[in-house]
């Protein structure tokens, strides 16, 4: 009942009516770009503070509470500090690549959030390969890490970058395969259609066992993709240096730092969209009254709520588990997750074929 396609269409028409065609299109692009940059910035602000507060509550302490009530302006203060920091100049292996590397991760992250459906019709880029596109963009982010580590002219940064790169490209496999498992029920890669297909049940309920297994594998592989604990060996403080971003300070470090949080948001958003129904309210096949009540809550709230739940889960992992060593990490992926994933896809294919899912 909340349909934003009309509103978006209306804005588009108004733009086209007040200025020539080309200009209207370009202005439309700029507007969307500005909105997404704002989302990016707000996400960074909120997530960093949330991480610190949640960590504090897990650790029986208070967290930031001086700057603003409940420390809500803490991230703003951090951002100002990072911007004013002196860029420490040492001899770089390659200045051009050193400066270029953070942009890879930022652009990858921004392109990924552009295909997320926030509500019906509220989507920047509703392409028919939506999910595939998101995965491709995260592959491009790997490049930024490799280049950043190498261009820093630092043995430890290079070590960290290579390991990080190897870890990310290994776990991309698991991420893709676990998503594929659930797409078998949707029948399309288009994000809006994936959400629409969950109108009667969310996929995690619809696909019962294979979907739950896929969800668990996706959460593990997603945490590894974003280089978070228990898979953050490359950035660990008690290891050698701070990984690939050892030599970055100031604004460029802010880019790497922010993009880690936005990547976490992206993984959570993919999980929320594909497994938990995106902006679709909680519906159960036959209960019409219940469904109607659920529909009153705006879809954006549903989406953000689910994403918040997933983010909380990822943060919970971070403060509860120690780190895996790099060889244990790789062993986990190649010897356990990948075979499990493949078997799960077979299982799901069988389930879909036989129609043994809810609401078939």
């Amino acid at each position, binding site marked *: 009942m909340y349909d934003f396609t009309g509103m978006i269409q209306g804005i588009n028409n108004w733009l086209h009516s007040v200025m020539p065609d080309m200009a209207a299109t370009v202005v439309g692009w700029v507007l969307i770009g500005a909105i997404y940059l704002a989302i990016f910035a707000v996400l960074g602000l909120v997530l960093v503070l949330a991480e610190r507060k949640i960590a504090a509550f897990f650790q029986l302490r208070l967290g930031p509470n001086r700057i603003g009530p409940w420390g809500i302006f803490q991230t703003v203060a951090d951002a100002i500090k990072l911007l004013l920091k002196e860029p420490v100049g040492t001899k770089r292996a390659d200045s051009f690549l050193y400066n270029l590397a953070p942009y890879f991760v930022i652009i990858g992250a921004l392109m990924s959030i552009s295909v997320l459906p926030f509500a019906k019709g509220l989507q920047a880029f509703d392409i028919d390969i939506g999910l595939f596109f998101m995965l491709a963009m995260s592959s491009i982010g790997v490049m930024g890490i490799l280049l950043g580590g190498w261009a820093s002219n630092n043995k430890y940064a290079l070590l960290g970058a290579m390991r990080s790169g190897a870890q990310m490209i290994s776990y991309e496999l698991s991420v893709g395969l676990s998503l594929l498992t659930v797409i078998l029920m949707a029948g399309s890669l288009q994000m809006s259609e994936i959400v629409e297909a969950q109108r009667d049940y969310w996929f995690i309920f619809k696909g019962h066992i294979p979907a739950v297994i896929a969800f668990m594998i996706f959460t593990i592989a997603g945490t590894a993709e974003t280089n978070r604990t228990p898979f953050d060996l490359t950035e660990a403080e*008690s290891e050698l240096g701070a990984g690939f971003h050892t030599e970055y300070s100031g604004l460029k470090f802010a880019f790497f730092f922010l993009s880690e949080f936005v990547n976490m948001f992206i993984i959570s958003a993919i999980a929320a969209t594909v497994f938990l129904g995106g902006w679709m309210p909680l519906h159960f096949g036959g209960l019409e009254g219940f469904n109607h009540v659920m529909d009153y809550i705006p879809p954006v709230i549903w989406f953000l709520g689910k994403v918040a739940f997933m983010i909380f889960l990822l943060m919970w992992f971070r403060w509860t588990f120690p780190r*895996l060593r790099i060889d244990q990490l790789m062993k986990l992926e190649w010897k356990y997750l990948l075979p499990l994933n493949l078997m799960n896809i077979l299982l799901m294919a069988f389930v879909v074929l036989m129609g043994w899912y809810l609401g078939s």
Partner: protein
Amino acid sequence: MREKATTLYLGPQHPGITGNMMVRLKVEGDTIVKATTEVGYLHRAFEKLAEKRNWLQTFTLMCRFCVPEPDPMEESYSRAVEAIEGRIVPERAKYIRVMMLELARIGSLLLWHAGQAGSTGLYTVGQWTVGDRNYILDLFEELTGARIYHMYIWPGGVRRDFPEGFADKVLKTMDYLEGRLKDYDNLMFENSIFQKRTQGVGYVSPKQIIERGVVGPVLRGAGIRSDIRIDDPYEVYDKLDFKIPTETSSDIWGRALVRREELRQSIRIIRQVIEKMPEGAIYNKVPNPQKWTIPPGDALARTESSRGEIGFYVVSDGSNKPRRVHLRGAAYVHAMTLLEDVLVGQNISDVSTIMNSLGTCAPEIER
């Protein structure tokens, strides 16, 4: 693909090491082929300083050898001086000393939790244990006036008697700590990733144990039931009832289990001490502290700290200043020479964990 050996330097400033020391690692790929420790960043020349101060002034230096657990140092030094002079310590003072030692042991073990878990990436445990350690430091503050360096146990007894209601406070803190132990189990010891990181890592062979003179939890983690508190009882340990835990795996996990059990035993000991403590004097008063001389002689006093056996060897030449004070610390062997042997063949990610498990205390190594 054979990778050529590179040299990596861990320290002296490093978030994964307690204290300042450097470990030079020669690595091939991820595996360490040779390790060399370099110490000296924290040398404060305490043993030489002790020769320039009189007996009572020296006792203020002795606690500063080791930060997490200063009380065994004070106690060991005091007992050595009492042995040379033949000074008798009152019963009540002995019980209070045991209580202080065990409280310090608990504090040190809580800090060990933080280091061991923190080096594997589990920082939450560190935040919890440091918070709980504060309650013990509060007890210290109320009894001695200081939180870390107490300067409380001196030759002849202890300096102050219990304030009003202190025994109840101690028992309450012990109850609180026992309640927290379940949480630590859930988060740290039953955590399968922690187990995976620590099992089979940092193995100390029996040959190394004999050659290097290994003591403490490292020894007990290898299956040898040896503890100065029962081998050579001092203070009132022969009157108390406690268990000495041993494990046989001789890796980080075994040592972690040993230390986990020791924490529980310490709580048990403190409860017994509070129950059995007699009334009486707490100090066998030294006649004139500034002009106090001790007959010539020497003595060795051995104490079991949370890292292992420490010993104070004190030599007196009849004057009012010590002729020689020497500390034989557990960390000197474990974290300097044993570490170089144990690190060979290990992964560089495990260096910090191994150092924490062997009980690295850089201040104690270098005095």
